[in-house]
Structure formats: C-alpha cells, structure tokens
C-alpha cells in the first residue's frame, strides 16, 4: 500500500473516461430517451384524441340510430295508413262493383220478366182470341178487333 504514480494514472484514466462518456455516450443516449419520451407523449395524446373521436362517433351513431328508428316508425305508420286506404278503396270498389252487378242482374231479370210477361200476354191474347172464337163460333177479324184485343192484352 504505497502511494505512487498509480494515483496520477488513475486520474488521467478518469478524465479520459469522463470525457469519452460526455462526448460519445451521453448525448446519443439522452437523445434517444428524449425522443422516445416525446414519441410516447405523442402516442398518448393521439390515443386520447382517438378515444374522444371514438366517443363522438358513438354518440353520432346513437343519434343516427334513433333517427333511423324514427324514420322507420314513420314509414311503417305511413305504410299502414296507405294499406288501410287501399283496403278501404278496394272495399269501396268491391261494393260499387257488387252493386253494379246486382243492378245489372236485376235489370236482366226485369227484362226477362217483361219478355216473359209479353209472351204470356201474347199467348193469353191468342188463347183468349181462340176462346172467344169458339164462344162466338165465328172468326174474329184480327184487323177489325185489333184495337179491342190490344186493350184486352194491356189489361192482363
């Protein structure tokens, strides 16, 4: 344990190593650390921003969902209304058509009835004429008694 030039050697080595560290080790390390710090800070800020945007988007999505629901409701009610209208229209159409058909049928029936009446009337006239002929034993001139016969037929 003697003090000797080792002391000076160690001091020189110390100075050299400190200088080396200050010049070549510390600055790049600190630079990397600072840059990373900045990157992380930026990343965190971006994440926060993203979060906020996400929340906004969710809000917007919720709003548009509500809106869409409302619209759908509206459309449905309108459609229901329209359907009811259509049904009503159809009912009305059907009713008028039915009435029209009934009227036509009745008309036809009336015509048929009239025709049958006319025929019957004609037959009754001819039967009546034949009966009258028999009763009078004489020919009834159709032309001379036409007025009489027509009156008769109208009465039947």
């Amino acid at each position, binding site marked *: 344990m003697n003090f*000797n030039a080792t002391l000076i050697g160690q001091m020189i080595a110390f100075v050299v190593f400190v200088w080396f*560290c200050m010049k070549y080790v510390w600055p790049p*390390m600190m630079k*990397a650390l600072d840059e990373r710090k900045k990157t992380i800070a930026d990343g965190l800020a971006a994440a926060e921003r993203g979060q906020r945007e996400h929340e906004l988007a969710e809000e917007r999505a919720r709003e548009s969902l509500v809106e869409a629901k409302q619209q759908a409701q509206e459309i449905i009610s309108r459609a229901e209304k329209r359907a009811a209208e259509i049904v009503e229209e159809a009912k009305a159409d059907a009713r008028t058509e039915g009435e029209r058909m009934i009227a036509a049928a009745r008309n036809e029936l009336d015509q048929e009835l009239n025709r049958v009446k006319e025929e019957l009337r004609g037959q009754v006239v001819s039967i009546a004429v034949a009966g009258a002929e028999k009763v009078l034993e004489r020919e009834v001139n159709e032309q001379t008694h036409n007025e009489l016969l027509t009156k008769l037929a109208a009465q039947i």
Partner: protein
Amino acid sequence: MASDTLTSGEYIKHHLTNLTFGQHPDGSWGFAHTGEEAAQMGFWAIHVDSMFWSVLLGFILFYIFRKAAKNAHAGVPGGLQNFCEWIVDFINDTVRGSFSGRNPLIAPLAFTIFGWIFLMNFMDLIAVDLLPWLAQLFGQHVLGVDPHHVYFKVVPTTDPNITFGLALGVFILMLYYSIKMKGVGGFFGELAFQPFPKWMFPINLILEGVALIAKPVSLALRLFGNMYAGETIFILIALMYSAGIVMAGFGGLLQLGWAIFHILIITLQAFIFMTLTVVYLDMAHQEHH
C-alpha cells in the same frame, strides 16, 4: 488455495501486495519482488495490476455503453439498449434529484463514477484466488519467474491510489467550479468568513479548510476501506480451505454468504461515491446562503 509453502501470514500478505513496476534503488527498472522492494521504489512506481484492471474495466464499460449509444434509437429498445437506458435513466434521475444547476458534465461524470466503480468493486466477487493463481501460472510458465514474486491484486478499488485518484479528480472539479461560480474572492470568503464573524477568520479558515479537505479524503477512504475490508475477509475465509475438508466446506458456505452480502456493498459503495460527488459539486455550484 493457500499453498503449502506459504504460512497464513504470508498468504494474506501476498494477496494484499500490488504488482509494482518501478525503479529499483540500484537504478534498474523492473517489477518489485516483495512489498518492501515496492515501497523502496518511491512515488515514481506504478501498480500494474490496479491500472490494468481499472483501465480494462473502464474500456469494457464504455465499449458496452458506446455500442448501445451508437445504436440508440427512439423505437422499441432491444435487450442491451434497454439495460443501458435503464441505468442511464437511473443516473439521470439521481443527478436531477441532487443537482440543482445545469451542467452537462455532471450526469456523465456521475455515470462514469458509478459504472466504473461498480465494475471495479465487482472484481471482488470473482473467486479470490482465481485470477492471482492464473497470473502466477502465467508468470511461472510464460515469463519464467518465481511465482511467489508474482503479485496480482485484481480489485482496483482496494488500492488507495485508485480511490484517491478518483477522489482527487472530483476535488479538482469542486475547486474549479467553486472558483468559476463564485470567483476566487467568493470561494475564499466562503472558507474564511463563516461560520464565525469575519474577525475570527483564522479559525474559520481552519474549520472550513478541514471540511473542504475532508470531502475527497472521506470519499476515497470510505470506498477503499469498505473494499479492502471485504477483500480481506474473502482472503481470511479462503484460508479455511487448507484446514481440512470440514472447514473447507464451511469456508465455502461463508464465502458464498459473504459474496451475496458483498453484492449489496459494492453497489452501495459505488452509489454513495456517485451521490456524494454530485452533492459536493452541487455545493460548489451554489452561492453560499
């Protein structure tokens, strides 16, 4: 592994002697063969083993950190970068906590002190006989010298030259920044005109002067004392290896226990040296209350 030809006292002494290169009293240059010869060499001799390990460990430290620094980038760090950044960040936080001014020298200085002293202390954990034994083999078979004259102390911080070298470097920085920040007058005033009134300045000077000198001395002696004591205990435990198998086994356990405890000491001592350096330099930077 105390060899049969050595007594315990010789074994211990052998382990605590540095490999010294210097000028013999007869004028020739060469390695000292004994501790006495080394002492006779006076100041202009050098502890080759201390210097060698000290510089080698410094190179290893800065090789690793330079490699990490060169590849340092802000992206996801790899294993080495992660480790180095962890240490750099730790040092940086410590410095920021204790040093109030702004000086780009302080953090690298603190890092150099911490990393270097830690590595030098760490040599204490390598089996106490291994490297000296290898050195003896090397000396005997390659250089052809008497192995008993091959001294090899592998823990540089158990050499007071090393610890005082560091402490003196710090001391010079303290003086430099004191004068730079406060001027010669301010620095002298700090030494002479407090804590007592100005007319008592001789007493002030003595008090403050002792306080000033005590800083580097305590720095150096604390580290040296801790490491020297630790090393000595390793050597003493190693003596048990030659005292039969039972004692050797017991010694092995003790060696292990002491090594585990020593992990704490080497880290703590490196940390204390660094922290006190930062604190002293902070004091040098500050105008006195």
